[in-house]
């Protein structure tokens, strides 16, 4: 740490921030561009990349809560499924003739944010298991209400065949199910069946990553860290911890709702399984395996587990057992997750280098 003070040039902080911002956006964009090809190489079907990218957003939403605020929610499905249902209902009932993707997605995100504020208002006063169980209770209530409200939600059948939402961009109305111009890639195979959806989802994920990165580097993020580490102390210093926890819960609900609405529009269907305890648990698994408190951990965890799920489920019937084992092994041996462990190693190596250099 002291090594940095000996650094000969003092570049203006702002300029370096901009530089690192640009580098971050560029590298992430390249990564997202390469991802479907890499996935294709190891046997993932074309649509899987899009699904992983969409679901990652929900896992990032959980990470804001679990990783940065230290609150374990077992009710994320209420936002994920909730976002999906609201987007579908908006499309069916308010714009059957002019299905606008922006309106459906933003409407769903806004609604889940409000839901998160309401649920959070009573939940964030609780901690640990109590908080987890209260979020679970609310998620179960949402599940029940959706399952029973057959007229609006289709009950157990869910909602299908809602209008295909078009993406309004300036003068164009893009249909995201359009296949990209055939991509014949020689040894990489043919990715001609990848849809415009992937590009859109990747841009959304990039924006979300950028947003969360800025969030963790802001004062808000620092206060959240302080509250997670020692809530009592941060309250004494004068921060309204409950308000910060509520804000984190709302952001988490918004991101998860956003993800759920995109998933529903991409699938063209939404069903009650998006509201179950198992669904809530899956985000927890993704985040923990990838690494909470890291920016890319949730994406990596989602990608690995969803890839294994899709590839293994075709080959062996007990992939869920393997998923469970990976989860347990990650908790016991990689408490920082895959990305967290790698970062720690690197940081450790750097500290070692600094220690050698300093004298």
């Amino acid at each position, binding site marked *: 740490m002291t090594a940095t003070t000996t650094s000969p040039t003092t570049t203006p902080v702002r300029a370096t921030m901009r530089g690192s911002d640009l580098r971050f956006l560029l590298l992430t964009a390249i990564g997202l561009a390469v991802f479907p090809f890499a996935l294709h190489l190891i046997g993932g079907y074309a649509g899987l990349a899009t699904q992983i990218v969409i679901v990652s957003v929900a896992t990032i939403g959980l990470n804001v809560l679990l990783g940065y605020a230290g609150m374990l929610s077992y009710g994320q499905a209420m936002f994920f499924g909730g976002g999906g249902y609201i987007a579908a209902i908006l499309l069916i009932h308010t714009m059957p003739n002019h299905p606008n993707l922006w309106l459906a997605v933003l409407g769903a995100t806004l609604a889940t944010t409000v839901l998160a504020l309401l649920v959070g208002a009573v939940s964030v006063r609780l901690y640990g*298991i109590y908080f*987890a169980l*209260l979020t679970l209770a609310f998620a179960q209530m949402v599940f*029940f209400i959706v399952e029973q409200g057959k007229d609006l939600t289709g009950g157990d059948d869910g909602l299908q065949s809602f209008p295909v939402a078009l993406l309004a961009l300036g003068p164009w109305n893009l249909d995201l199910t359009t296949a990209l111009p055939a991509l014949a890639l020689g040894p990489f195979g043919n990715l001609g069946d990848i849809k415009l959806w992937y590009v859109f989802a990747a841009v959304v994920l990039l924006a979300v990553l950028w947003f969360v990165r800025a969030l963790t580097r802001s004062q808000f993020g620092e206060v959240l860290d302080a509250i997670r580490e020692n*809530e009592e102390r941060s309250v004494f210093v004068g921060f309204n911890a409950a308000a910060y926890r509520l804000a984190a819960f709302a952001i988490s609900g918004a991101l998860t709702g956003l993800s759920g609405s995109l998933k529903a529009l991409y699938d063209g269907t939404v069903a009650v399984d998006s509201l179950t305890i198992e669904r809530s648990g899956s985000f927890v698994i993704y985040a923990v395996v990838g690494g909470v408190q890291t920016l890319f951990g949730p994406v990596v965890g989602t990608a690995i587990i969803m890839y294994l799920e899709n590839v293994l489920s075709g080959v062996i019937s007990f992939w*869920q*057992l393997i998923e469970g084992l990976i*989860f347990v092994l990650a*908790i*016991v041996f990689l408490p920082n997750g895959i990305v967290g462990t790698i970062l720690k190693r690197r940081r450790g190596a750097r500290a070692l280098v600094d220690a050698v250099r300093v004298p």
Partner: protein
Amino acid sequence: MEALSQALLNGLVRGLIYVAIAVGLTIVFGTLRLVNFAHGAFYAIGAYVGLVVAQKLGLVPAFIVAPLAVALFAVALDRLVLRRFYDKEPTAQLLLTFGIALVVEETLRLIFGGTTQQYPMPSWLASASTTIGPIAYPTYQLLFAAGVVVMVLLVWVFFQRTDYGLIVRAGVRDRIMVQLLGGNIRQASTIVFAIGAGLAGLVGAAASPIYSLDPETGFNFLVPSFVVVVVGGLGSFWGAVLGGILIGELQAVTTLLYPPAADVVIYVCMALILVLRPQGLLGESEVIRPT
């Protein structure tokens, strides 16, 4: 009236299952401060071990082997994995035990398949019913209810009357002091864990002839049992008993009055308790603090 008493009896039987599972959850939390999401897995293992034994040897041996097997499994699990997590935050414990529950569930699915299993019952018992006042109720259910009551009382007596029980109860108050005084709290903890798990395993075997059994059954009973423990007060023995009967009856009465709400009413109940009285009906108020 007849329908109501029928519903109340159904609620009592179901509630007693919750009691038996919740007592294990709550004593393990009270002594080890361990939030055990894998407790439902103990129920499921007991049910499947019981099934195998029942098919070969009959019901009574099943009720002996199942709790012993589950208790052994629990002790092994405790020694191998859980022990490392005693001092970690509750969130980490929750994640770990959730993972273990997943692994157990999927292992059971791998071995026994995902289909619903039928418990073999002696024919005289399968159709026997006992008349209580205006209604005839299956004899097995009544025997089961009586059995759970006896088991719970035995556990209570164990905690009140034995040296282990004394160490455990003292350990709940002040763990370090007990160790300073030479009490072997580790051994006592192991016994508590084995008892809690064995109880869940026994109920798994004994309740499966009444309710259907598939790999998800454990988790399906676990979640309401957590509701029970929260309603009664996490760590409170009699809270688990009161909560179990309350939740069982609440479900049964709701099923009678408005069936679609039967599953959700318990979550509404838990949410109300968590918001209004987070320590539960019979719990002590010190528990709700930032980690």
